[in-house]
């Protein structure tokens, strides 16, 4: 199967949630030292609820598209709902089979999320 499905390319070229969130309550930046890709994630909580999520980063199509998809997914969720978020939730959104090396790219924003809400 092609890695670069229309869906992924669309998120990459037209990100919905890119940019810093004003008044963010949670924030983390992570990078993959092996390839230099990085993702910075911001969350704004109202009580327990994520009212806004945003990201910024540099890297490959997978890491950037996955960051945008994750941010979109996070809005409206409660901290409780995402506290133990499974990597498969994100991989399902990405929707393509990934080898071990590319898996790290797609999961980079998840590392940022876990750090941010720790």
């Amino acid at each position: 199967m092609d890695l670069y499905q229309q869906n992924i390319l669309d998120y990459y070229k037209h990100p919905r949630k890119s940019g810093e969130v004003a008044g963010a309550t949670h924030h983390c930046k992570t990078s993959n030292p092996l390839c230099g890709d990085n993702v910075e994630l911001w969350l704004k909580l109202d009580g327990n609820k994520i009212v806004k999520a945003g990201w910024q980063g540099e890297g490959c199509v997978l890491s950037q598209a996955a960051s945008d998809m994750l941010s979109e997914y996070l809005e409206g969720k409660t901290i409780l709902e995402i506290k133990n978020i499974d990597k498969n939730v994100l991989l399902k959104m990405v929707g393509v089979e990934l080898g071990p090396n590319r898996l790290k790219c797609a999961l980079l924003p998840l590392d940022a999320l876990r750090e941010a809400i720790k």
Partner: protein
Amino acid sequence: MLKNNIKSQFPLLDSPENKNLAFLDNAASTQKHESVLKAMDDFYRGSYANIHRGVYRLAEAATAAYENARVTIAQFINAGEEAEIIFTRNTTNSLNMVASSICQQFAPGDEILLTEIEHHANLVPWQQAAKHYQLKLKFIPVTSEGRLDLSNISDLCNNKTKVVAVSAMSNVLGTITELEPIISAAHKVGAVVVVDAAQAVPHTPIDVKKLDCDFLTFSAHKMFGPSGIGVLYGKRSLLEALEPFEFGGGMISEVTWNSSTWADIPEKFEAGTPPIAEAVGLAKAAEFIQSVGWDNFLSHEAELTNYGLTELTKISGLHLFGPSDAKNRGPVFAFTLDGVHPHDLASVLDENNIAVRSGHHCAMPLHRKFELLATTRASCTIYNTKEDIDRLVEGIKKAQKLFC
């Protein structure tokens, strides 16, 4: 260009599954020649036993095969004698051995001179030794076009300099180092020269006597031989003065409960059961290179270098990392592509059956110096063809269409 299709002598490349593979990751590791695979297989099936000390015929045959490999490798790089050839695990292992042992002889404040093109394998072991013995690291700078700048060599090499460790060819820029002026500057101040020939050895003939380097290292897997074996060449007097690096069976002369004395070189540096079949394979790989002949290697690769440089620099948005003229340069092409991340490019190329590598290629400081996080690297060797480069160019254009 070579007339005979040499690709067909490499079983993996000749297999039905890989008939359409453009394998362009040879700077990382090469495919194995038929003769290497056959020699190792024959050895395991017909003459395998542990080497040394066994008096039965199989042990003697295995010992002879292993020691003959040492003779072949000594001839391959023109060492003074086979005892100057130490079999190791790989280049990294060889460099760690030299760095950790030789630095014991130095005083705090002494200097080690490296270059800015070094692979982590010829940088990190020296960093560690420098920390341990309070030595200072200095670097021969690389110019913006990717060549070593030797204009300050006489300042950099001073009477504090104890070791000059330098790569004979860059695994990123493709440049072949002018070793002679570096070695003579080092020897003028009495410094020992360590040459990392991991990248150079399948691209250019090496004559350690003519170079007059003190140590030289390389790996079999980058020259059509097996993984798991490397070489450390050292001049006899220097090897004799060096403390062993690992201890155990095979490297001792006499052992009592509380102390031991060391065997002579090369055994002193070969503790434990060595990579025996791998030595047989390595020797075959050296013989394969010699059978093709350096003239053929050099002219084939010069054509690939010229063709690659011409075709790649035609692509708009492609920025070559390293010199764009073919002088003193091999067919290794690292580059960035506007709007396309190296990982994505490598993935698209893979979907088109073209194997390249993306990342920092174990040269992080070099990438950082040029403000690059990662590059894509296509590296050719004797079995590559102009068609492989055409396929690469086509693949790059496909990626541009997809992402830009």
